[in-house]
């Protein structure tokens, strides 16, 4: 169990589309890798080795720097039994921990229900970007979803103070939860009520923030800067969620994937630097995940949907290093005859984070007992 003085915070970064783990942490000395990736293999001389078999993609230099400082746990071969190659279902399974049925509750939503059972703080969970991920959803759990932190606020366009006050009072009354209107109307009422409350709270954030870190101007940097701004405002947010899209690299992967991975690495580096400068990094752990890894053999231009992949757990309190086994590339060890397998169930990683970091009972949240890793310092 990691001992820290402040309440632990979890930041989840979702790489949407299926990040190519093999070109992120590259098995650079493996002949099968180079044979399978005729068009896409990262050249051995370009890689940034982390041991004699694995190396970072060169664009992930900032992540390597964090790794070398001991702040990055690489979870190799993460996945689950009978992995679903559909984006839709794949992501849904990661969000809900339910591989066989469709449910509406997400694992982080259930975690927040434990952290804040009465939904007293509407910013216990904050999601940045368009749309609320199912992972953050659970009945009765208020989650604040922010598309633009700088203009967030209900009816902020009504200039006349008195008119706006009247309008907000009526808004509050219209969105008062009532009985017997049906599920969707209940949800809407609760959402309107929460929007008012969270707007009040978050309106103070932009004015309170100063930093010497210059984030890059790309979506993931903007999102992680917003996470930093809200975290540094000390509003009691315990779970942050953000998404980085575009990883579905079926084609022109050499043009697309390095850019995304480079943006991501730099953004993560800047984010932790920003927190460290404000003495607010120790209580933060980040999970970076994606819905599946990609096919071992490239298709000439990109890679098709695969199975096993990789995830990262990052933070000052993390015991950096390699966790799990890098999935075998030998043909008799493959899933579907062509994909990397898995040896760490994603629910093991969730359980680890929930129990060892957030001090929550993981069993009801991930729907079962899973072996845990030990990625935190004592």
């Amino acid at each position: 169990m990691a001992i820290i003085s402040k309440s632990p915070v979890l930041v989840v970064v979702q790489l949407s589309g299926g990040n190519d783990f093999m070109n992120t942490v590259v098995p650079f000395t493996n002949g099968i890798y180079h044979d399978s990736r005729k068009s896409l293999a990262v050249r051995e001389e370009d890689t940034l080795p982390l041991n004699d078999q694995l190396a970072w993609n060169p664009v992930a230099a900032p992540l390597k720097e964090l790794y070398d400082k001991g702040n990055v746990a690489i979870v190799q071969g993460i996945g689950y039994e009978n992995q679903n190659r559909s984006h839709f279902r794949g992501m849904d399974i990661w969000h809900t921990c339910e591989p066989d049925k469709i449910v509406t509750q997400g694992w982080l939503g259930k975690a927040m229900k434990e952290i804040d059972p009465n939904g007293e703080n509407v910013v216990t969970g904050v999601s940045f970007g368009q749309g609320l991920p199912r992972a953050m959803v659970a009945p009765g759990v208020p989650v604040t979803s922010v598309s633009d932190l700088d203009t967030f606020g209900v009816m902020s366009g009504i200039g006349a103070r008195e008119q706006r006050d009247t309008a907000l009072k009526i808004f509050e009354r219209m969105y008062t939860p009532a009985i017997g209107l049906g599920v969707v109307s209940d949800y809407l009422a609760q959402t309107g009520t929460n929007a008012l409350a969270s707007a009040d709270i978050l309106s103070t954030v932009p004015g309170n923030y100063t930093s010497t870190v210059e984030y890059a101007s790309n979506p993931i940097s903007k999102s992680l800067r917003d996470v930093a701004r809200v975290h540094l405002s000390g509003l009691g947010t315990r779970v942050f969620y953000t998404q980085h899209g575009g990883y579905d690299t079926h084609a022109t992967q050499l043009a697309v994937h390095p850019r995304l991975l480079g943006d991501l690495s730099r953004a993560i580096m800047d984010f932790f630097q920003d927190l460290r400068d404000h003495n607010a990094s120790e209580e933060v752990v980040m999970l970076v995940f994606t819905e599946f890894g990609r096919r071992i053999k490239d298709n000439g231009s990109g890679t098709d949907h695969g199975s096993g992949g990789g995830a990262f757990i990052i933070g000052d309190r993390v015991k950096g290093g390699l966790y799990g086994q890098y999935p075998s590339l030998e043909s008799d060890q493959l899933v579907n005859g062509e994909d990397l397998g898995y040896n760490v169930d994603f629910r093991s990683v969730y359980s680890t984070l929930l129990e060892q970091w957030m001090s929550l009972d993981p069993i009801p949240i991930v729907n079962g007992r899973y072996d845990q890793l030990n990625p935190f310092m004592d």
Partner: protein
Amino acid sequence: MTEKDLSLISHLMRRAGFGASREEIESYASKDYEEIVEDLLNPERFPEYDTDMVSRYMQGTLVGDSLAEAQAAWMLRMAYSPRPLEERMTLFWHHVFASGWNKHEHVPVCTNQIETFRKYCMSDMQTILIELSKDPLMVGWLDNSENHRDAPNENYAREIMELFSMGVGNYSENDIKEAARAFTGWTMTQCIPLYPFGSYSPRFKFRADDHDYGEKTFLGETGNLDGYDIVDIIVKQPATARFIARHLYNFFVADEPQVPAWNIQPPGDPSAVDLLSKTFAESKGDLREVLRVLFNADFFKNARFKKIKSPVDLVVGTVKIAGTHKIPQPSTEGLAAATKLMGQALMDAPTVEGWHTGHEWVDSGTLTERVNFATNHMANIASPGIQDIIARIKSNGPNISPEVFLDSCLDLMGPIEIDETTRSSLMVFANQAGGLMFGDGESDADSSDKIRQMLQLVVSSPEYQFA
């Protein structure tokens, strides 16, 4: 013409189009409901939308270098096309066949796809899937341009079945591989450089030398199958009839669970989906036939205010009530930014899986964006739609009670139906305003401003989130 007729026509136009002003509803009401439906189903009875104004005031739409202008221009067309269902069905196919600008960052290939959807939107499923398979944006978006005889790429083959026609659970991984082979060589021409002729969409191209002419087995049928055969076989599948029927129900009638749940969760109204599915199968996928049955069914007529508006519905519907942007304004491009902040950038789907709909459109962030857009859009008394509402209320003057004040606003904006909580909340304002009084310039101005404030409150209500 009864109040009930107006309400039903208003419902039809919100769903089959993007709403209607009171003047438009009154003109529709000279016909029977079934005749209005036939007019909608036969857009060729009406002139095409004139793009002249858009071209003149939004020149980026001619050069094709601004996605935001292209998005906004499409929204104007939704609002003001004389063929509302044509635009609605174009949006339907865009919703089902979600694809986007963000992969290739080329606007003309996106608008070209929308034109294709518009042209074939009410034809038959066979034609639609073939046109889709040849569409250059789709060819690039799902990498069929990288699907080669000697190196098949499965992306399009998987998604045409999973997302575009049958849904998961109705085919095997092997069917995907075989379909991929059948679509080898279906590619597109190179884009010509932007200069000196401007930006144009590439075109579909079949490369026989890159096509796999070998024997394939797909969903039980064996032969030298090509893309046409794959589409033929797909359209015959009962799963396709059911999948499209459910999409139509979800899009036009009432919100269903998200698409991936469809092979697990039964439809909310099984008999309605059965009826649409049966019509689809019997008509060999004739969309006009299915829509005719849908719009004339009681399950449709009774589904008022049961569906969460998509961001585009909310924005275009609000524009229609206010009567704004008939001629493009400098602010017209802002309509694109508005729907994007609400989670729906037209021609720019977030991923191949498209958009999550229903109540998933709404969270605390997007609800804030929706309310703010709508209240801001109702802020200007000079807007033609607001002027019309004021004039109609004034004609019942000179003295209007608080109750009538509220009821008139709700009536002229829809009619919009609200529940007791919302009514009592809005009555707080109506009572505070003390009703309306018309007469001299000062009282007219005062009453107009009160109407404007009431419209702003109505568009921020929970009920306004529903279509």
